[in-house]
């Protein structure tokens, strides 16, 4: 099976954060932006960056876990967290080039996008609204994925220049 991936076209993000709500409805049963596996960062108004796992080809987070609480789903290529095993040590987000994983606000366990088992809710609402900032593609593993695992503030700094020109250099 070809693995799936969520494309992120940052410029299309309206900042509506419905992805956060759809994600938390699915994983938490209610609206909970900070528990969402996709979080939209906005270090400067108008410059929004959806921040979520990019499924790196070498999975540094999985490698870093001292208690083997993280594993890779063979079908989807998503990182799966064994919440019972997780000790909240933070090794995963430190190993992640984009600091994507975070500790859940309720149980303090590592929290990472699981691609909803293959049918991501964030993608559905983004598509429904016509933004298509988050888009599902069926394609094999690529080294490029890892380049999307980037600190969202750094991404925003680039986007700001793209949007605002020279002025963008100084807003974040």
């Amino acid at each position, binding site marked *: 099976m070809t693995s799936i991936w969520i494309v992120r076209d940052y410029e*299309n993000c309206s900042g*509506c954060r419905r992805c956060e709500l759809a994600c938390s409805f699915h994983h938490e*049963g209610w609206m909970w*932006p900070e528990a969402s596996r996709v979080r939209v960062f906005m*270090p*400067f*108004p*108008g410059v929004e960056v959806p921040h979520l796992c990019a499924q790196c080809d070498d999975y540094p987070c999985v490698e870093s876990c001292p208690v083997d609480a993280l594993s890779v789903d063979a079908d989807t290529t998503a990182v799966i967290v064994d919440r019972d095993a997780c000790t909240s040590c933070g090794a995963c987000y430190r190993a992640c080039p984009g600091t994507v994983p975070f500790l859940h606000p309720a149980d303090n366990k590592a929290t990472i996008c699981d691609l909803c088992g293959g049918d991501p809710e964030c993608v559905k609402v983004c598509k429904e609204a016509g933004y298509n900032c988050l888009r599902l593609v069926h394609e094999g593993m690529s080294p490029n994925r890892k380049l999307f695992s980037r600190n969202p503030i750094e991404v925003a700094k680039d986007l700001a220049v793209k*949007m605002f*020109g020279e002025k963008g250099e100084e807003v974040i």
Partner: protein
Amino acid sequence: MMTPRGYAGKFLDIDLTNEKITNTTFPEKDLEQYFGGRGLAAKILWDRIGEKWREVDPLGPDNLFIALGGPMTGIYPGGRICISGKSPVSNGTVGSTASTEFAHELRTAGYDGVIVSGRAEKPVYIMVTEEGGEIKDASHLWGTMGEETIKLLNKEVTRVLDSKKEIGLWKEPGMIYVGPAGENMVRNACVMTKLCHAAGYGGYGSLMGSKNLKAIVAKGRGALPEVYAPEAVKLLWKRAHEHLIANDSFRRQGTGYGGWSTATSYSSEPVRNWQDEWHDERSFGGPMFETRFWVKKKWSDFNCTTNCMKVACVKSGKWKGAITDNPDYELQAYCGANFGVFDPAENIHLSALIDNLGHSGIGGANTMGFAAELYQRGILTEEDLGFKLEWGDAEAFDKIARLIAYREGIGDVLAEGTYRAALKLTEMKGVDCMPYAIHVKGIEIGAHGTRSDADFLAHDIGYAVNVQGGDHTSIVRDGYHELSGAVFADSAVYCSFARTPQELIFDYAKAITGYPLTIESWRRENGPRIVTLQKAFLLLGGPDVIWEPIKDDDNPERFYAPLPTGPFKGRTTDRKLVERRRLAYFETLGWDDRGIPTKETLNRLDLGYLEKSMTGLR
């Protein structure tokens, strides 16, 4: 006591004088009767300073600065915060709302609102998290323009949060803040949020400034409040977004097509301080903004797919570096046509500057237009200003915006807002300046004129009897229909541009709160209760202004002069109709023929506590 559904359950009470912070709750009856935002703020104000209302200086330490969500905030599309207090411009109260992530950050931190009293000795900001509130030094932020404030606070607050608890990456907080105009107590200054979002009406930026309060930031990590019927809310949430997504033209254009089309189609746009309301400057059309300046064509706030905003940026030429939204219609009108400016780049620059300074893009720009008309008439001179203030001269309007924000020279007088500046200048110049002051009860009028009667929004008594004066977001229709519109939206606290059918909104409200609420019951009880309480505040006013019933329940004189040009040339507001409908409005709400609530009405609406102060006015 069980927390009523839809509420985070507590409010933060902050006394800046004594640096005392406590958690507060309000009786469930108050929540059911006044809901949140505009309604609940008015009740809190009455309970705490109502008895001495006339003596409370809006810019003194006795006034309260209130920022409230409502039960629908963040849960219904278009999350907003509602700002209130005794208004420094109307001396009554305004429920002044702005879309912002601050609102849901506050609610997910466990708070439905923040009530600030007293006055800090030196500049401070307040940080709200699940641990409560914290007063922090803001001397390094004082004087910063909006863009800089956002940049500094985002960095500082995420650093502080990270040092308290390591979670991976902390996302930026939500914030409300003031620019230099608010700091310097320019009376009609805004409470700003994001970049160009503002709680504009009411002058609450100056109230924050008077308390030495630069900003309130909030970061919550909890879920949004629990609701009465979660499965129903989930379904309604989907339905509501379907409605928003279907509104294609509004999503494409926002209000950023209005700068030309409102004038040319409806003749209801302020042109050169309302000397006209028509123009046909096609260079100012929506597509001219879109093609050259919109760098993001769909920009939303939290939980909203209306995305009525568009990020605009000037990337070349003289005004390079200006960033704002569309500008939206109000600022296209007020910082464009109103200045005689019809160049999109100049309009974007002036809108961005005015937002950055923390001026109200409506109120402050109205005062600037007022000043320009005085200049046109030779009442204000180059000597007074230090420069020529000609219509269409963007550089001159850039200068006057700064002059007012920093209260330099004549800017100090204009910083009192249009009405008070007109009083002062009449005295200084010995010429009646009031005919050029376009306001109702101290609140400068939104960019929708009444004369053509063609605008979808503003008609004869829309402003004249509005308890929020010239506020175009809370226009009066008949004392009935608007109550379930703006008055409800400002109290449940969501954005009126998250437009869905009223039935759906009230189903949503019921599913959240569990209150036995209907459109009818809101129009009959809650709505009139809130508006009647606001009316009482407005009638009391003081200490510097007390509005005169009937005389001040009217449009500005200019709105009765015939439109000078355009397809509606000669048309004007019908004075007889205003008189008739004003009386009918009072009657509908159970106020006497001077607009003073009757004893029976107060009793019916459970507002008996107002009787003592209303007796004195009847």
